[in-house]
């Protein structure tokens, strides 16, 4: 059984439950070669469980899972040949240096992995820290070491679970460039995130998970075509009049936002019309900004839970009002 279908990853009907909780519910997940594939979902959606299943860290209760066309049983010890990456924050032996850790992992891999260590450390930007014990590494440094460890395996499939956690914007940018280059070289990348903006910028295809089920799977362009209108935050001199005007304008829907001002759902052109109309009616515009991109909006629709604090709120008109959110929710450091 070889790569008949050509898919790098093919999961059919994969289910996993932990006691009473269903982590994955009949998930079908397909990844084609050479793309950067985003796995999206809120926390607890099952992304980590699915990625763990790809690595064989979690064994599904139902369904089949194929990597490069082979199931775990068919592949035997070669199941993870050409596959590398990490699930949740990469963990290493804190009492060993970065370099020693990679040497241990290269030893487990065999082959010529050991020869790649110094190169991988340099590419990951850890050349200076390689002799220091991992105990002293920051979260960002551990993420980079995880990447270096992955590259030792010359992967054709790279699986990264929230790789930008703990990274500064420069690091995120670099990662994006590196991953796009890898994709051009023919490496398939699976990237998980709960942040649609990041995914938008780098991925070609996307699978959205919600409560263990697939909410959407397909190419990003297809997703954009399906996406609802972008969401704007609008502050005016007269919110009441603005709401009235919105009811009269085609292609524009508006609601009051809890923090004041309005939330407006409209495509770019109707929005322009609406703003000009408000000005003509003497309603002053005090602030206008794009709050949620179309894809983010779609994401919230697919995964939003009405009534949950901090989550999106659904209005009676069926519109999802995103929560007021800071840009990067800080991730708590894991205790080593």
């Amino acid at each position, binding site marked *: 059984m070889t790569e008949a279908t050509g898919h790098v990853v093919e999961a059919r009907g994969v289910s996993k439950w932990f006691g009473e909780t269903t982590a994955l519910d009949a998930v079908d997940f397909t990844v084609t070669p050479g793309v950067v594939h985003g796995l999206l979902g809120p926390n607890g959606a099952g992304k980590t469980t699915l990625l763990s299943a790809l690595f064989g860290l979690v064994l599904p209760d139902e369904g089949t899972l194929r990597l490069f066309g082979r199931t775990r049983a068919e592949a035997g010890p070669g*199941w993870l040949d050409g596959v*590398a990456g*990490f699930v949740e924050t990469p963990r290493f032996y804190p009492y060993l240096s970065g370099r020693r850790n990679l040497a241990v*992992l290269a030893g487990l891999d065999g082959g010529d992995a050991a020869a790649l260590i110094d190169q991988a450390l340099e*590419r990951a930007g850890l050349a200076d820290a390689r002799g220091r014990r991992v105990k002293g590494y920051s979260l960002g440094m551990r993420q*980079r070491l995880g990447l270096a460890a992955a590259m030792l395996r010359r992967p054709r499939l790279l699986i990264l679970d929230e790789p930008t956690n703990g990274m500064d914007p420069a690091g995120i940018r670099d990662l994006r460039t590196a991953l796009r280059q890898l994709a051009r070289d023919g490496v398939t990348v699976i990237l998980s995130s709960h942040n649609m903006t990041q995914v938008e910028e780098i991925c070609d295809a996307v699978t959205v998970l919600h409560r263990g089920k697939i909410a959407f799977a397909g190419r990003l362009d297809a997703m954009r075509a399906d996406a609802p209108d972008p969401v704007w935050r609008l502050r005016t001199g007269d919110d009441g009049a603005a709401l009235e005007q919105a009811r009269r304008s085609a292609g524009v829907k508006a609601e009051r936002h809890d923090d004041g001002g309005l939330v407006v759902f409209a495509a770019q052109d109707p929005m322009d019309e609406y703003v000009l109309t408000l000005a003509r009616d003497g309603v002053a515009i005090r602030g206008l900004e794009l709050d949620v991109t179309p894809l983010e909006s779609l994401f919230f629709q697919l995964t939003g839970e009405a009534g949950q604090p901090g989550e999106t709120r659904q209005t009676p008109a069926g519109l999802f009002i995103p929560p007021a959110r800071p840009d990067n929710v800080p991730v708590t450091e894991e205790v080593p």
Partner: protein
Amino acid sequence: MTLAAGQWPAYAEPAAGPAAGPSDPRQRSGTLVVWRLELAKLRGQWRVRAIALMCLVGPFVIVAGLNVQSATPGDTAFGQWVHTSGFAIPMVILGFGGQWLLPVGTAVVAGDIFSSEDHFGTWKTILTRSRSRGELFAGKFLAACTFATAAMVLLIITGLLAGLLAGTQPVVGLGGQLVTASHATELVVVSWLSVMPPVLGFTALAIFTSVASRNSAVGIGVPVVLTLAFQVVTLIALPAWGQQVLLSTPFTAWHGFWEQPAYVGPFLYGLLTSAVWFTLCSAAAWLVFRRRTIGGAS
């Protein structure tokens, strides 16, 4: 610090080929790869070095201690002969310390070798390389057994040497017979070797408790507690077969070798007991480990 683009290593061709089974030579040598790496990791542990040091100098320290006073260890076989013949010394060490020193010594390593990965969260790191769960399990298991064996062999050598230095006069056996130096040497070595099986039994037990609990304190502590428990239980008037079931009993099977006529019944039963404990604990540890969920995925 940047992630340089475009210069990652080149990639291997797609792997095609038949599925590999457990008889694949790659899998057999995979276990050895893990075994060697684990031994290297053990060599760096302070605990292992401390135990090695104790095995190296312990018997000589004991001989020196015995030399500075005229009293003899009571309540232990060969105790009264320690000033008369050097061969009594390794036998006193075996009799006195064997039943708790050796199980604790092996538990300190075997009770930690699996659960340390849980402690550091590194199971997911090493399970996502080119070694299967079976290879990792077998490699670590072998490394723990290797440590136990090596420490025992070291102790046999230094114990015998310390005894030989103290004096090679014939020693009085447990049957009242006088045992010459060459025969005594043989009996000392054979007696010590006879406790290897229960030591391996305790190794497997410590591995099981550490795999099941994912905690080194439990992995080491439970075998230690069990050692004490066995010694308490053995004092009860159990039927002979009940005594044989305890893993502590094979530690004294060597008494029969020193009797006249020598008897090996307890040794053979001890072999069976050790084998059963070893097999059950190893199998249980593997069953728990092979399909376990790694990580906090939920």
